[in-house]
């Protein structure tokens, strides 16, 4: 990434009379929208820019130079699993034989597409130990919501209507309680122990016949395996609740253990984390949801199944919770994940988890003498430092994050989880080499030295990025949410 700032907006490049498109001659010119009743037509002017093709291409290319991606450099953003995004996946997903399909065209003309769905469903089942997957949810949070709808439907269909409470650990991602609220459930928070795991003794008094279930992220957001899972699932099942597994952090467990075998009933996966599809600056993602045997009929509609003749078809089960997407989710993302599943296969999935865990522990051990490690012991995909060990410098986690940008690294996740004030959450993933990790470690040590010797350099970072520190307060106090407010 260069540090040349490019700050123009497309509206500022517009010049009346320029065009960036070409269309065939209208063959039906006797028809025109001017024949519609006048009061049904748009009267307002428009801000749509007038620009030629090259201007548009240069504009967005210049903007891309102000961006940092996994292909630019190391991206140790905790809980986001920023692994390498294979390029063959992109090429396969863009094949016109898939991208030109209309979602309503008959299943008989889309058997190849449906077979991809079916195969991915099957492979995710094997990787997680659950019985059946839907690929309809559009993202992780959408998967959580879908999973909670399945849990609610299970209770509703049994006539068990008073189960409205959902237990969520205090270390959970914010989407867990937010998804529960959208699903109409009441959130009950359970505390973590000093060792970062769910407090089983604190859980016990929360269990009752009003509990719909419990959501757990494993490994949790501290990167720790929830070792009490067998006891927790036993307790929650005993009180009649279902166990939800937030699979956002599943990557480090690939090859080692499966949520289904741990007693979980419902889970979601993030194809854009564990299964290498690109995050795209925010999307599109995909959040497939899996269920154990006995819950398959509640999966959202439509669902891809195979009949006895080997034909794939769309099933609308009468007991389904309903539709959560217009069609079958983010198909292109599923194609990319399928390419990844095929490439990794039996041999490489089993090493994916261990190598991700090795990378995380390696950084942790190499830095814990200068950064405060609040919880000792083995971590899984990620770990959390509570800022610098030496607190006398007053250099904050935010300062460290910004200084890392100067050295060509993306920052870790900061100030999450909320359990520590100066949280720096680091997740390297298995696709990073020892060389990259060594250079990151060296840089983190350099920053620690800078913090002690010339703290101002760190506190005013970044210095070498396209733009400097932002005034977030001003963005709220003097809001500019569209270009119009700059021209008014």
């Amino acid at each position, binding site marked *: 990434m260069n540090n040349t700032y490019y*700050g123009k907006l*497309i509206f500022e490049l517009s010049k009346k009379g320029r065009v*960036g498109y070409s*269309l*065939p001659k209208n063959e*039906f010119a006797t*028809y025109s*929208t001017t024949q519609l009743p006048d009061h049904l037509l*748009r*009267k*307002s002017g*428009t801000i749509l820019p007038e620009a030629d093709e090259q201007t*548009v*291409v240069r504009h*967005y290319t210049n903007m*891309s130079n102000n*961006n*940092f991606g996994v292909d630019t450099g190391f991206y140790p953003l905790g809980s986001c699993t920023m692994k390498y995004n294979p390029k063959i996946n992109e090429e*396969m997903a863009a094949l016109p*034989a898939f*991208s030109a399909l209309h*979602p309503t*065209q008959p299943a008989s*003309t*889309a058997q190849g597409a449906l077979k991809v769905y079916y195969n991915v469903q099957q492979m995710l089942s094997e990787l997680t*130990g659950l019985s059946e997957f839907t690929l309809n949810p559009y*993202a992780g949070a959408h998967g*959580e919501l879908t999973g909670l709808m399945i849990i609610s439907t299970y209770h509703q269909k049994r006539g068990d209507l008073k189960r409205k409470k959902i237990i969520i650990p205090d270390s959970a991602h914010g989407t867990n309680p937010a998804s529960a*609220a959208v699903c109409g459930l009441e959130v009950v928070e359970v505390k973590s122990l000093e060792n970062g795991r769910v407090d089983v003794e604190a859980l016990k008094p929360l269990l009752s016949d009003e509990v719909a279930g419990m959501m757990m992220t494993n490994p949790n957001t501290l990167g720790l395996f929830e070792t009490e899972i067998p006891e927790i699932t036993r307790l929650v099942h005993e009180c009649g609740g279902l166990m939800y597994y937030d699979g956002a952090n599943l990557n480090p467990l690939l090859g080692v*253990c499966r949520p289904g*075998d741990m007693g979980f009933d419902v889970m979601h996966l993030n194809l854009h984390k564990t299964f290498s599809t690109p995050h795209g*600056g*925010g*999307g*599109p993602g995909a959040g497939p949801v899996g269920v154990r045997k006995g819950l398959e009929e509640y999966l959202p509609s439509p669902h891809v199944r195979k009949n006895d003749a080997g034909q794939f078809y769309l099933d609308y089960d009468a007991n389904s919770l309903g539709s*959560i997407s*217009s069609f079958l989710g983010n*198909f*292109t993302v599923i194609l990319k994940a399928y390419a990844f599943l*095929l*490439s990794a*296969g*039996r*041999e490489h*999935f089993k090493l994916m988890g261990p*190598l991700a*865990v*090795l990378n995380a522990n390696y950084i942790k051990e190499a830095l814990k003498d200068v950064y405060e490690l609040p919880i000792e*012991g083995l971590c899984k995909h990620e770990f959390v430092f509570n800022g610098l060990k030496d607190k006398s410098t007053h250099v904050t986690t935010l300062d460290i994050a910004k200084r890392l940008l100067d050295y060509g690294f993306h920052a870790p996740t900061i100030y999450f989880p909320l359990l520590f004030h100066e949280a720096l959450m680091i997740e390297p993933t298995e696709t990073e080499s020892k060389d990259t990790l060594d250079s990151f470690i060296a840089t983190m040590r350099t920053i620690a030295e800078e913090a002690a010797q010339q703290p101002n350099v760190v506190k005013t970072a*970044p210095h070498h990025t*396209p733009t400097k520190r932002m005034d*977030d307060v*001003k*963005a*709220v106090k003097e809001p500019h*949410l*569209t*270009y*119009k407010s*700059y021209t008014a």
Partner: protein
Amino acid sequence: MNYKYFPHTEDDIREMLQVCGVEDLEGLYAELPDSVKLGRDYRLPDAKSEIEVRREFEALGKENTPLVCFAGAGVYDHYTPAVINYVTQRSEFLTSYTPYQAEISQGTLQYIFEYQTLMADLTGMSISNASMYDGATATAEAMMMAMASVKKADRILISATLNPAVIRVTQTYAHFHGVNLIVIPEKNGVTDFDFMKSELEKGGVAGVIVGQPNYYGIIEDLSGIAELCHQNKALLIMNCPASTLAVLRTPGEWGADIAVGDGQSLGLPMNYGGPYVGYFCTTEALIRKMPGRIVGGTTDSDGKRTFVLTMQAREQHIRRQKATSNICTNQGMMTLFVTMYMSLMGPQGLKEVNEQSYAGAHYLHDELLKTGKFADAFPGQPFFNEFCVRTDTDIEQMQGKLLAEGILGGIRLTSEGKKDCILFAVTEKRTKAEIDKMVSLIKEA
């Protein structure tokens, strides 16, 4: 190991394990209870080389049939200019995360800001969020936002003339979220005004959701509906296919409070149903209730104009269960895609695409009626790029014959009383020759 996505050499692993104080890779999982360990290989196919992956996809692709598309129902076969796929594949965009570190994410933040400007302009509303999953979930979010914004209200009205896929998703959210969602019946293809009026006048309605053009392609006359909603303290929520707003009266001009819909019609490939992009626009008065990410302008310490994620106090990572929505991020690449599309098409191009789609649809409509086999399903209603006709012909047989010729001949309606109806859509990609061919095949059937 020899896997191109794992950079570790045997020596690397040995040295790293040593630093970790662990003997082997298995030792990294020492704290796990034995009862949860898998203890066997996955039952998955053997890893495939890139050549084999390509072969598999090519073989699967051959099991799909490319069709000349006359189907719509919310998903339209518009043309994608070549430069969009070219530029959106730049990995600085594609392989980045949500723009948390604004100093190295100005590319993403800036195109979202442009997107917000363009969508607010297209819908005639004051603000837009950074986008949502699709038009259906955006509609469900609008429903929940109306419930949270209007006091002493207990229900939402939704028109039966909306796309059934949108209704289905909204109903699912309503069921679990505890919203009493009432369907306003259809009358000659449009929303039953009298029913809506009487429901609104009973009081307690937080919002009314209508589609424009509606599922049948009809442009509804919504005169007086916004006023009626506002007199009864309800919000008007409009769902419109984004592209049509270049020509049709906008939600802002109709007096809507929330405009939602799908951005697929802005040149996104049909992709067998996704990914698309849901847009969500509203008035300044309602901004703090809006779901999703928002990007705003500010300055950096050098005084340069820059962009950041803003108004985050509404969101799940801050407010947890009290957030306005559970949505975590936006539809990133699809947002860039439609932003580039609008920038290339400009005011003239977007208008021309709609003109050609409108003209092609009206030509097809008239040619179909000339065969004597079809009649208007909803006589006298103005339509846009899509229309609904009724027929005595065996629809299954007719569509089968068209399929055999590589033509997707519209969508048969499935609702009660409409099973003899077909919905046809036309875009600028359809030629007169293609239309004439389909009509002549239907004529012979």
